[in-house]
């Protein structure tokens, strides 16, 4: 009896989680299918590119700048234990472009963009704007979700690339002002030790994280519950789901890219 109850208690959330994964997968499949089929809403795509890409630049840039600086200090102080202070430029560069640039950039975009998309689409749902779109012969997924997902998938890698450069600059700035590195040597070490795939893998991660962020924002927004509470819950769920999925997929991608 107790065993049955225990299994039931365990089974219910497992089944609910599997159903949720199924719904999100179907939603993602629908979006991908619509990306390839006309009509294409170029204006909406442009607007989203601006909102998701351009307007996220300050927050991603500042995050990268301070992270690069802090990373330089940490590596210097840690490296001093092994007389390895000279590795600061290369480790900062590799750390930024492979991990911290994409992950922190992705998380900052998740906080800023997933919440905004979920709140906007959730409000559209509760005020019947999504129903209105349907009655005006416009597919809401195609008109609302596709431009956002496509824009985020293309914009986040660019943001990550810019963030990588700013993060390395943050490390360089701290290196030459606080850690007595020679500017030219610092930059030379950075360039010499950095490989193309270090940067490329980070950009691929950025594209995956951008897709996840917009997908979670659109899914939770378009399935939002009623009223202010429903929209609030959708917004929170979008940010939490996007953040967790970014961290989980980062681990999986790192396994795929750097272990064989």
């Amino acid at each position, binding site marked *: 009896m107790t065993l049955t109850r225990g299994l039931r208690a365990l089974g219910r959330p497992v089944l609910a989680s599997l159903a949720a994964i199924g719904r999100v997968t179907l939603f993602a499949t629908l979006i991908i299918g619509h990306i390839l089929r006309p009509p294409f809403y170029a204006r909406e795509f442009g607007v989203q590119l601006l909102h998701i890409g351009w307007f996220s630049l300050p927050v991603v840039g500042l995050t990268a700048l301070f992270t690069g600086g802090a990373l330089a200090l940490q590596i210097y102080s840690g490296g001093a234990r092994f007389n390895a202070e000279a590795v600061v430029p290369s480790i900062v560069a590799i750390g930024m472009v492979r991990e911290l640039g994409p992950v922190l950039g992705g998380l900052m975009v998740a906080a800023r963009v997933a919440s905004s998309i979920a709140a906007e689409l959730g409000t559209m749902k509760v005020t019947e704007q999504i129903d209105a779109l349907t*009655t*005006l012969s416009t597919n809401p997924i195609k008109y609302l979700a596709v431009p956002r997902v496509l824009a985020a998938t293309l914009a986040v890698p660019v943001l990550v690339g810019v963030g990588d450069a700013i993060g390395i600059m943050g490390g360089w700035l701290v290196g030459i002002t606080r850690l007595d590195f020679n500017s030219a040597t610092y930059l030379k070490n950075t360039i010499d030790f950095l490989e193309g795939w270090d940067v490329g893998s980070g950009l691929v991660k950025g594209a995956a994280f951008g897709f996840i962020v917009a997908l979670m924002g659109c899914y939770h927004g378009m399935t939002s519950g009623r009223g202010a509470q429903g929209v609030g819950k959708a917004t929170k769920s979008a940010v939490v789901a996007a953040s967790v999925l970014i961290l989980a997929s980062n681990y999986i991608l790192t396994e795929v890219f750097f272990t064989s």
Partner: protein
Amino acid sequence: MIELSGVTKAFGPKKVLAGVDLTIPSGKSMVIIGGSGTGKSVLLKCILGLIVHDAGFITLDGQDVRRAERDAFLARFGMLFQGGALFDSLRVWENVAFRLMRGASRHPKAQAREMAIEKLRRVGLTPDVADLYPAELSGGMQKRVGLARAIAAEPEIIFFDEPTTGLDPIMAGVINDLIREIVVEMGATAMTITHDMSSVRAIADRVAMLHDGRIQWTGPIEELDTCSDPYVQQFIHGRAHGPISAIR
């Protein structure tokens, strides 16, 4: 002609529509009355396919709406939503011209704008409203813009969901008159759901009362006051006591 036969819809254990049978003749204005939460909006959304009904048939000119080609089917409809449902991110004229600028019969932007301004004029709004955003308008103006959007593509069938809710009596009267004029002028089939009796009297050719998920009574507007149905009488006179329970 829209025909509903044995239409049911439940949300979990709550049965909202329990077998609705109703005919809406072409070119007539049908008003559905009924208390709050009796499933009027659900019924309307089932016809449009925004909500999928569980059982029964809904046909438009003899064709099952679930088998109809979606774009062609929806192109025949216009709808005024309860809260207007205007797109916040678009200007007023872009809202009105939304359908005109998309789809097979797409118009050039300048022409669509002209047509939108003409429709705004038709609902009593001046052209200077065209470049405002919906949030800059009063509730009554938003309803008018919603009405202009509903009629912009000159649909054959127009649905009005609580068209006067939240408006003062004068503005409600203006909207009712506009709806009546437009429906007569366009020769459209109209279906309005409301619990505002002044709207019913201004808009309806025929009235149907929805209660407990079924059509309790239906007949021409002229027979509404004289019909013997106790549910209808309680509803139209707003009595607290009668067969309809006040606590639902």
